[in-house]
């Protein structure tokens, strides 16, 4: 009969108190697991590897908003920039790839973003080292009214290749465009915001009545450009949401061709030329201030913004979650301590009997600590299972409310630390009751 089996007997004898103690630890660990998993998900979501682009160019405004719009498909899109700006940009010697994004519309129920872009987008790596993959039977954008949808969107609506769907103008579910798009491809799941995006052809986006500028607006814009020093690129004024709304009310352009002056892009995602990441970073460093100095657009290094996001937003959340986790650990530890310490008064006789049978003080100390360790270990294992169960149950709810994708089966590396940390905690909280057992007066214990 060894220490562990003696400790286990003691736990079983007080099964109700022991079960409740283990349960409190389990709940603590479950919360900790949930916190770690969510922290991991949020961190991964905003990880600096979340984009394969060096620069994002869009209208002047919040750099963070531009990144949230184009990388995470979150927040309201900011103003647009002229399509010709994009065409000029594309010709620059330092540009390897320039991908236009036209944002603003959503699926008919307003849940998922519509992104007007070009087929070239799907040829690039969306994050370093990862290229777009299609689920079987699909293809990338080819026709004007083709759509490639993210895995999450396909799952949410049950859409498959060949299905047609309408889109809501400006995210207004009461303003549904007549034109329908056809699903030609479903992207393989990425675990990234791409999963909840709907990509349509940029040209198709501008075939929809209301998306283009009116000829009058385009002429005014061109005149404004000529009015200054003739530099076409720096004098493009920002186009207000009001103008966009006015444009929407005009009659449809039907099948008439739309001039480049009438088109706009919300953002341009740029991959720099260069023989490697260092050269690309150097080019980004040089070009960014030049674009920002000019009045038309802003250039944002997404990595910088994502890092800022990680530090300013996610970092604070992480600190808060960490504080919560530490609190949970302390509360669980106090729970074990109270449970075992309270039982010590009832166990004086037990301890005295074992001491009378020849058990050394150190053995009694070890039995009590072993008891704390067993309770913690049992609680910890149960907590790990409960924690992932909690994430499994809460994942879809969080996902539905926040658009943050949570994989319940994801195992955070930090979880490996839970059991060793719990065992250390068990030894620490077992010390005082253990010392009580160590110091127990045998003669008095036997006579009580």
């Amino acid at each position: 009969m060894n220490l562990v089996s003696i400790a286990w007997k003691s736990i079983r004898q007080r099964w109700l108190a022991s079960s409740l103690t283990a349960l409190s630890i389990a709940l603590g660990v479950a919360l900790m697991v949930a916190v770690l998993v969510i922290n991991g998900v949020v961190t991964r979501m905003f990880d600096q590897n979340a984009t394969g682009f060096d620069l994002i160019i869009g209208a002047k405004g919040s750099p963070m908003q531009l990144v949230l719009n184009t990388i995470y498909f979150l927040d309201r899109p900011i103003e647009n920039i002229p399509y010709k700006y994009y065409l000029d940009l594309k010709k620059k010697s330092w540009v390897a790839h320039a991908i236009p994004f036209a944002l603003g519309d959503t699926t008919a129920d307003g849940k998922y973003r519509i992104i007007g872009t070009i087929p070239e987008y799907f040829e690039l790596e969306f994050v370093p080292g990862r290229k777009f993959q299609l689920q079987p039977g699909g293809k990338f954008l080819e026709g004007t009214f083709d759509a490639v949808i993210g895995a999450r969107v396909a799952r949410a609506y049950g859409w498959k290749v060949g299905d047609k769907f309408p889109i809501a103008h400006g995210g207004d579910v009461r303003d549904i465009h007549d034109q329908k798009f056809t699903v030609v491809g479903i992207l393989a799941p990425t675990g990234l915001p791409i999963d909840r995006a709907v990509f349509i052809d940029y040209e198709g986006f501008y075939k929809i009545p209301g998306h283009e500028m009116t000829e009058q607006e385009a002429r005014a814009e061109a005149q404004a450009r000529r009015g200054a020093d003739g530099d076409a690129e720096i004098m493009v004024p920002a186009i207000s949401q009001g103008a966009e709304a006015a444009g929407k009310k005009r009659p449809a352009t039907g099948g008439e061709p739309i001039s480049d002056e009438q088109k706009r892009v919300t953002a341009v995602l740029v991959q720099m030329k260069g023989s490697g990441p260092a050269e690309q970073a150097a080019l980004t460093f040089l070009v960014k201030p030049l674009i920002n100095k000019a009045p038309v657009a802003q250039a944002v290094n997404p990595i910088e913004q994502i890092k800022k996001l990680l530090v300013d937003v996610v970092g604070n959340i992480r600190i808060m979650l960490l504080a919560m986790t530490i609190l949970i650990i302390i509360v669980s530890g106090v729970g074990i301590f109270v449970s075992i310490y309270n039982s010590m008064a009832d166990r004086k006789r037990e301890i005295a009997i074992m001491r009378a049978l020849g058990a050394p003080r150190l053995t009694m100390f070890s039995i009590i600590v072993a008891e704390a360790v067993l309770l913690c270990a049992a609680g910890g294992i149960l907590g790990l299972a409960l924690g992932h169960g909690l994430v499994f149950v809460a994942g879809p709810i969080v996902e539905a409310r926040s658009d943050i994708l949570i994989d319940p089966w994801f195992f955070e590396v930090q979880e490996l630390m839970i059991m060793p940390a719990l065992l250390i905690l068990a030894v620490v909280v077992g010390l005082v009751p253990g010392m009580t057992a160590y110091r127990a007066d045998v003669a008095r214990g036997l006579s009580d």
Partner: protein
Amino acid sequence: MSLVLKDIRKSYREPDGQPLPILDIGQFSLNSGEQAALLGHSGGGKTTLLNVIAGITVPDSGSVTIDGTDITRLHEVGRDRFRAQKIGFVFQTFNLLPAFTALENVLLGMSFSGKKIDRRRADELLALVGLAHRLHHRPGRMSVGEQQRVAIARALANRPSLLLADEPTANLDVKNEQTILELIRGACEQNKVSLLMVTHSLDVAGRFTRVEKLADFNRAGRAA
């Protein structure tokens, strides 16, 4: 000689700090295999004396020699080990661990001796005390008589040379008292174990060939 006590003195402190002498014994001895009853009134120092002999309580002075070893010279861990190996204890209140079965209580007695646990001996001892059919019962489901039998089996588990019994029949009815006394004495005889039983009962003491009155050789007791 199995047990020799020499010049044992033990006092406790009263709340006012004054020493309260409990034991003041010049000499007491017990031969190997001998059985003796130590008669004394409540509060006369009987239990303290057993605790001193068992090495649970350290005397203020004097020596306790068991099988040639003066246990007062051993450090605490040594005394614990010596107690586990050489001394069996039967208490008035049985002192079985309620979470353990009869068999486990006996095995627990073996756990601290440093020797290999002998399951077969545990079975044999429980059979000897008539509990072969109750091996896996917990104390709570046994009669008081059965509980004391388990305590006897546990006390003999490590083949001690000395068995100390502290009023082992005080909580039993007359029938069980006789049975348990016979069982203890018989088991000690069979296992060649010296027996020192303290009691306040003249009836119990009367069953022993050698009966000592604690007050006769405990000067502290006389003073009280």
